[in-house]
């Protein structure tokens, strides 16, 4: 998916209409190692940009996932409860985390596009 937007915390967001799908990037899953636990926000909960809304634990470390946008969670990826490894296998596909109905789609404007994100992670290694 080339129309993904990215945060400096390695979340990706994909906008379709007023719904944003959120996950973590391939770089993030690679750094974390094999995930063993994903805790997702409640469906129906209000989230704000920068708020820690999900928890991920790998064999190596625990981390938080911040919401990149403001809105209401409308769907979560239940599959991750039992198969957190989906995030490692397909971080921008089957390993998505949750969907948010956003109050303002322009929230995504300030996020990095693919080339900006690739340039950003190149500075991290």
């Amino acid at each position, binding site marked *: 998916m080339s129309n993904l937007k990215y945060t400096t915390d390695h979340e990706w967001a994909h906008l379709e209409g007023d719904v944003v799908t959120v996950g973590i990037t391939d770089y993030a899953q690679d750094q974390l*190692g094999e995930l*063993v636990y994903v805790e997702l926000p409640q469906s129906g909960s209000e989230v704000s940009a920068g708020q820690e809304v999900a928890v991920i634990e790998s064999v*190596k470390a625990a981390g938080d996932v911040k919401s990149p946008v403001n809105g209401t969670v409308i769907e979560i990826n239940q599959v991750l409860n039992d198969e957190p490894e989906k995030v490692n296998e397909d971080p921008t596909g089957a390993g998505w985390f949750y969907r948010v109905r956003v109050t303002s789609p322009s929230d995504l404007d300030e996020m990095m596009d693919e080339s900006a994100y690739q340039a950003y992670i190149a500075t991290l290694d």
Partner: protein
Amino acid sequence: MVPFAGYEMPVHYAPGILAEHRQVRASAGLFDVSHMGQARVLGSNAGQVLETVLPANLLELDVGLQRYSFFTDANGGILDDLMVARLPDSYHLVVNASNKTDDFLLLESLCKDNIEFRALTDHALLALQGPQASAVLETLAPGINALPFMGVQQVSLKGLTCTITRSGYTGEDGYEISVAAENALALASTLLESPKVTPAGLGARDSLRLEAGLCLHGNDIGPDTSPVEAGLQWAIPQCRRKGGSRSGGFPGADRILSEIEHGPVRKRVGICPQGRAPVRAHTSLLAPNGSSVGEVTSGGFGPSINAPVAMAYVAREFSTPGTALQAVVRNRPLPVQVCPLPFVPHRYYSPKTLRRPLS
């Protein structure tokens, strides 16, 4: 690669921690544990002198056998845990990397007169672990599959002199092989030629030992925990206990022997979190009424049981398996249960099970 006790250590190789862990349980994995401290103590009364700093029975330890023990301090805490093997001419010690400097100073201070301390700083240590370990090593050292659990033997592997013990830190059958550092790469390469063996890193070593209920010094045991609190009194033989032929005579004996008699105020236990969320070290444990009863010392995900596992110290009255507690994870109480250790049964080699006639 991560820095660990002054060494650059691989957390995992290409397959990853989960795959390496499962490989060790299913077949065999090779760990480079050369960071561990290895030493020899030589001299006619070396055993007597070593017994003044640890509560083992070394005087009556047969040549060819190894014991698990610990250096204790005056408060009855655990300075380090170690393996001591008896060779024809010496005691062979393996201690933790992070404590080896202090351990070696302690040992050197003991070695006067006719006792010699030799740090084997020029030796590497390779751990071959898993149910296929003996089949693999047998092809290189015929007869090594008959070595009993906690046995030690000095053998030549492809012309390389090695000290091999049948022991490890995974709960599986396996060997730890001490070899001169300059020959370690050749030996590792030879072992890895077998399709049954793949390399395994620190990450899998930690998850394997945690499932096996084995203590990590610095996490689960240390100067603030006594061997009896840690449930390690099985490593203190009768002769060093009250009424024994060489009762006491090691640092902290008063407290430790009294705890064996009367029970400790807290105990190391297994903790099974009820959900999937791992409960990590330093997590507080609460009784149903909300009072603090203990703390997790090691915790993570157990790949072989596909569930989170942890070890903790809890007040004795809460240490019975089945006791329901709460772990405070990210400021929220999660239900956990006290459970027996180990989480995965040990599968050490016992000659009896092999000698049983096939029916």
